[in-house]
Each structure stands twice: as C-alpha cells, then as structure tokens.
C-alpha cells in the first residue's frame, strides 16, 4: 500500500529525514517510535502533504501512485488520514458540519452519493459509541474549548466516520490519561481490518499495550535504525533509546 524509499527531506534547509525506508501493507499496524526530534512528526506531516517540507531525494508511493504529487485534499480523498498531534480549533465551525463536508467530499471522489442529513446523523450516532463521544461535542465548534482528551477522541471519531485506508496517528497518546487512552485505543482497535493500515507515531510504549502493532520501527536522526515485532517496544521501554546506538 505504502512504500517509502530512501526519503530525504528538509525544512528551511535543515535536514530532517535522511534516507528513510518503510513499507506498509494493507491490514498492518506499524509503530514508529523514537526520541524527540528524530523526525516522527515530520514523517506524518509529509505523508499528509503539509506545506513547508522539501523532499530532496527519494520517493513515496501509495497504491502505486506517487503520493508526493497529490494535494493534501486528494490524498485525504484517496484514503490517507492524519490524526493530528495538536488538533486545530476552528471557531464558529460546527464540529459535525465539518465532518459531513469531509465525508461527502470523499464520497463524491469515490462516485458515491452524498449522505443527506438523516443518513449522516445515523452514521454519527453509530460511530460516537466507538469513542464514547459526548454528544455536546458534536455541535460545538471544531475542537474549540475541548480538553486534550476530547480533542484526541474527536480525531479518532473522525477517522471512524471517514474510514480511511491508511491512518496515521501522530502522538495520539500524548496528553491522555489512562482511561482516555483505553477508549482511544479501543476505538482504533475496532477499526482494524484487513484493508486498513495504521502508522502509529509515538514516543512512549504505553499506547502499544493497548494497540498491538505488527511491526515496531525505531526512528533516529531521520532514518529507521531498527525494526522488529511488538517485543522491540517493550525492550525500548526498559532500556531507553540510547541502548540501540
């Protein structure tokens, strides 16, 4: 599904990724771990198409197409979803209004009929349960005045509605207490299936207690220096990142 080959990137001429390779197949869950500043969030942002990053070398293919040539909205419509580390507040824009616009843009791209208000609401009611979303968060402005946990839950809720093929979760566990972490993890787990791939970007191992990855990669200084199974995460937790060098 996703193939990253020898990827080099820079922000304002500062090198961030330096020769990153990663291959993700449908149905797999990959955890990308690493110390602060190793390039984890950069990787997530580049895959989603955020402005401001220069790709100086390498390639990223997604479903056999050059991902880097697509605009952010095209990527989203083709099934790439980023759960933001810091979800943005948009005052005055109704949370589910944005979500309905997003879902219908994606459905339109797939030549599926747009959902009307009734159909959409029944979908919302069904998916809300996955992350135990509080109903009043639906009609509030996007992320405005949400607690850290509510914002992250809202991201997973959006993911549940939009049903992406490739979901990238950028530090979704940060700022969550243990109960919220469990809820978010259960939400993610319920969305796992054979067609859908996940990339979990995380600093800590604790998320992986609840979402069991197929692969764990350690990112350091812009490239993956070690890959393994779930046991690698536990080893990292015990020994720290320095142990790998």
């Amino acid at each position, binding site marked *: 599904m996703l193939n990253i080959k020898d990827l080099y990137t820079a922000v304002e001429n500062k090198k961030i990724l330096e020769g990153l390779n990663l291959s993700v197949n449908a149905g797999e869950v990959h955890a990308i771990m690493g110390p602060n500043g190793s390039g984890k969030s950069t990787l997530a942002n580049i895959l*989603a*198409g*955020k*402005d401001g990053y220069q790709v100086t070398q390498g390639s990223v293919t997604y479903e056999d197409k050059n991902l880097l040539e697509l*605009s*952010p*909205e095209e*990527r*989203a*419509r083709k099934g790439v*979803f*980023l759960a*933001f580390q810091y*979800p*943005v507040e*948009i*005052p*005055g*824009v109704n949370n589910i*209004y*944005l*979500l309905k*616009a*997003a*879902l219908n*843009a*994606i459905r339109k*791209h797939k030549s599926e009929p747009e959902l009307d208000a009734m159909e959409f609401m029944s979908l919302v009611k069904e998916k809300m349960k996955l992350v135990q979303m509080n109903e009043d968060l639906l009609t509030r*402005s*996007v992320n405005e005045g949400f607690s850290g946990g509510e914002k992250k839950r809202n991201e997973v809720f*959006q993911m549940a509605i*939009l049903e992406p093929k490739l979901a990238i979760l950028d530090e979704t566990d940060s700022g969550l207490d243990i109960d919220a972490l469990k809820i978010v993890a259960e939400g993610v787990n319920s969305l796992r299936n054979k067609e859908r791939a996940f990339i979990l970007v995380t600093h800590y191992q604790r998320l992986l207690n609840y979402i069991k990855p197929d692969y764990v990669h350690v990112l350091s200084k812009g490239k993956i220096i070690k890959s393994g199974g779930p046991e690698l995460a536990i080893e990292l937790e015990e020994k720290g990142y320095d142990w790998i060098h």
Partner: protein
Amino acid sequence: MSTNTENFEKLVKKEYEHGFVTDIDADTIPPGLSEEIITFISNKKEEPQWLLDWRLKAYRQWLKMKDPTWAKLDIEHIDYQAISYYSAPKSKEDAPKSLDEVDPKLLETYQKLGIPLDEQKMLSGVAVDAVFDSVSVATTFKQKLADAGVIFCSFSEAVKEHPDLVKQYLGSVVPAADNFFAALNSAVFTDGSFCYIPKGVRCPMELSTYFRINASNTGQFERTLIIADEESHVSYLEGCTAPMRDENQLHAAVVELVALKDAEIKYSTVQNWYPGDENGVGGIYNFVTKRGDCRGDNSKISWTQVETGSAITWKYPSCLLKGNNSIGEFYSVAVTNNYQQADTGTKMIHIGNNTSSTIISKGISARHAQNVYRGLVKISKNANGARNYSQCDSLLMGDQCGAHTFPYIETKNSNAKVEHEATTSKISDDQLFYCLQRGIAEEDAINMIVNGFCKEVFKELPMEFAVEAQKLLGVTLEGAVG
C-alpha cells in the same frame, strides 16, 4: 416649468456597457443640483409645500457644508453637479395597480435578482416594497398588513396618505443638516420606504425592501422611516444588488428608526452592490446615515448588517438610547476584497438609566482592501447603570490588506460598565491544512472558516437572509487565498 419638464423628458438615456441592463424608458433629468432641480423633484412627486421647504432648507445648509474627510477612506473627488438627481421608470406614470400592469422587463430584472415579487414567492411570507431607480413600483401583502394596521408603503405614498406621521417623524432622528450626506439626501431624496407599526401590534411578517440602482449616472437617495409605536414589534430586511458598471455611482441613503415605549425594531441589511472590478475600477460609493432612536422606556433597536459590496462604504448605524432600560445592538460583518474600502461601525449614545448596548463587529479584508471599524460608545452624565459590551474582530486574508479599529469611548458617568475586546487574526495555515487533510476543497475550507468567524453575526439574521449572506461571502471572497 413645463418647458423644462419637456426638455428633461427628451434626454437620451445612456446605455450600460457592462452587466445586465433593463431597457426601460427612464424619465431622467439632466445632471446638476440647484433649487430648481429640487423644486422639480418635489413637484414631480406632488409634494406639499412644507416638504419642499424642508428640502430647500436642507439644500441651503448643505451648500455650506464640506465632504467629511475624517474617515480612513481614499475617495476621488465627487462632482455633485455631474449627477442626475431624478430618474423614475416610465411605467410609474401609468401607476400600475398590480403586478400584471408592471413592465415585464422590470419583473424580469427582479427575477434575475431573485426578488420575490411573483405569486409563488409571495407565499414565502415576505412583503416587498421594491425600489427600482428611486420610485417604488409594486408593493405586496398590503392587505394582510393593513388588517394588522401596519402601514408599509413607499415614502412618496406615505407623504400623500399619511402626511401627519411623516411630518411628525421625518428628520426627528437624523436632522436635515446632520452631516454632509444626510443634508444632500434630505434635499434630493426621491423615494424610499415608510413603515408604521401601531401600538401593541406585532408585525405579522418580516418586511423587506430590495434596492437596485439601474439608470446610468443617477445617484440614489433613499429615505426610510420606520416608526414602532408603543409595545409594537417589527423586523425589517433590506437587501441590495446592482448591475456591473464602470463609473462610480453615488448612493447616500438616510434611514431613521423610532422605537417608542416597549417597542422593538430589528433592522437587517445585506448589501452587495457592485464593488468595482479587481483593479479597483468602478463600484458604488455608499455613504449612508442610519440611526435609531430608542425614544421610549424598555425599547430596543437592533442593527444587523452584512456589507460585502460597494467600492467605498461609509456607514455607522447608530442608536440613541434615550428611554430608561432601552437596548441598542449592532452586529456587523464587513467584507472588503480587491481595492474595496470600508469605514463602518456604530455609535451607541447612552442617555437613559440602565441602558445597555452590544456591539459585535467582524471585519474581513482580502487582497488590497482596507477595512475600518470606527465606533463610539458615549455614556452621558445622567445615564446611571449604563452597560456596553464591544467586540471587534478582524480577519486578514493575504498580506497586503489592512484592518483598523478605532473604538472611541466617552464616559461621563462613573458607574457605567464598558467592556471592549478586539482581535486581529489571519486564516491560519494550520486551520486550512486541517480541513484539507479531511478531504475538503480549499475554497470550501476558506468559506467554512470565514463563515465560522462571522457566525455570531449571522445568527442574528433572519433565516433566509443568513443563507444569502453565507453564499454572498463565498462569492465575494472567491479565490482570495491561494
């Protein structure tokens, strides 16, 4: 006079070079302003002597006045002698009794503008007093309003049918010589709307007037007077469009509102006159004086405006809070794009005890546009317990536009409570990226963010206006980012 009239009627009407133009035999007088012209207008409209005298008095005072220069506006010199001050559709001469008698081309123009004059739209519950080139042509729902005792008619008709009310209230809120543009309007106004809601009546429908500027070189000088008698309630909608054209057109309207004891007036405007092209050529000059007088205790006047059009907007809908416990509100969205300039805001003058006012202003500027909020909150010495809350937010799109806020506060009473908040922000790349990452197209995302920014104002608009306003905002800002 009669030879003059003939000469006037011989005048050839210029054709538009752009936009859709209704080919109607307009009855236009030559450019210029003088006591003769004013007398001609007054005679043409068969006005009583007192009104002619009032006009002439205003004109003589206007001659001594100068254009205001304090606003942050760059205005080209206006030659007031180059403007024609009267233009009426010919069909007025035959006095249409119903829509069937109205020139079909006129109706067609209204339909292009989406004005609900036809049978089907009458069902939508909006009474329309449509102003086409200064003279009202058709009024609907008269009967239903008449049953409730509400008077809603053209200003000319009010002068003929309800002279006492007009005489009592005309100029009582905005005096003839209030300011340069108000004095000009008082001298030459040709028509407008009049509305009287009797004591204890809740107006059974929203009253709506659509304006349209059509004839070339003809300034529009509308006069609106709304009187809400004790314990009455009215919601009034004003919406405007203008065809594409190249020359600057002057528009100087005056709106006066009077709310007596326990009465409430809600006045909503969506203004989308031609703003000029993307190089700043053409567009309407919109110099409007709007003022509401909360004359009685517990009265309330609420202004809501969405200003997206005009090359230049100079407009400060204000409230005089004379009655005890009276309330004034001002909700505004002003959008400027390309080379548009807007200097707009409000004045809240607290005179009575326990008066309160709320000001919510949202300014949006894109490309090279300049957007100014200018407001005055004045608490007079005897206004005990007065309260004001002001919030002025500006949104910038691009880095060549400007937003400016000039909030003036004058408090002569120490127990007044005045709060002011102001913010300026840009549409953030992060907000935009968030929407794009969810699959939403850039234009839609911008629309969504901008409409979100304006939500506090839009929610004050009647439903159908709110929908129109949102669409308008999208059209106005098309392609402004990116």
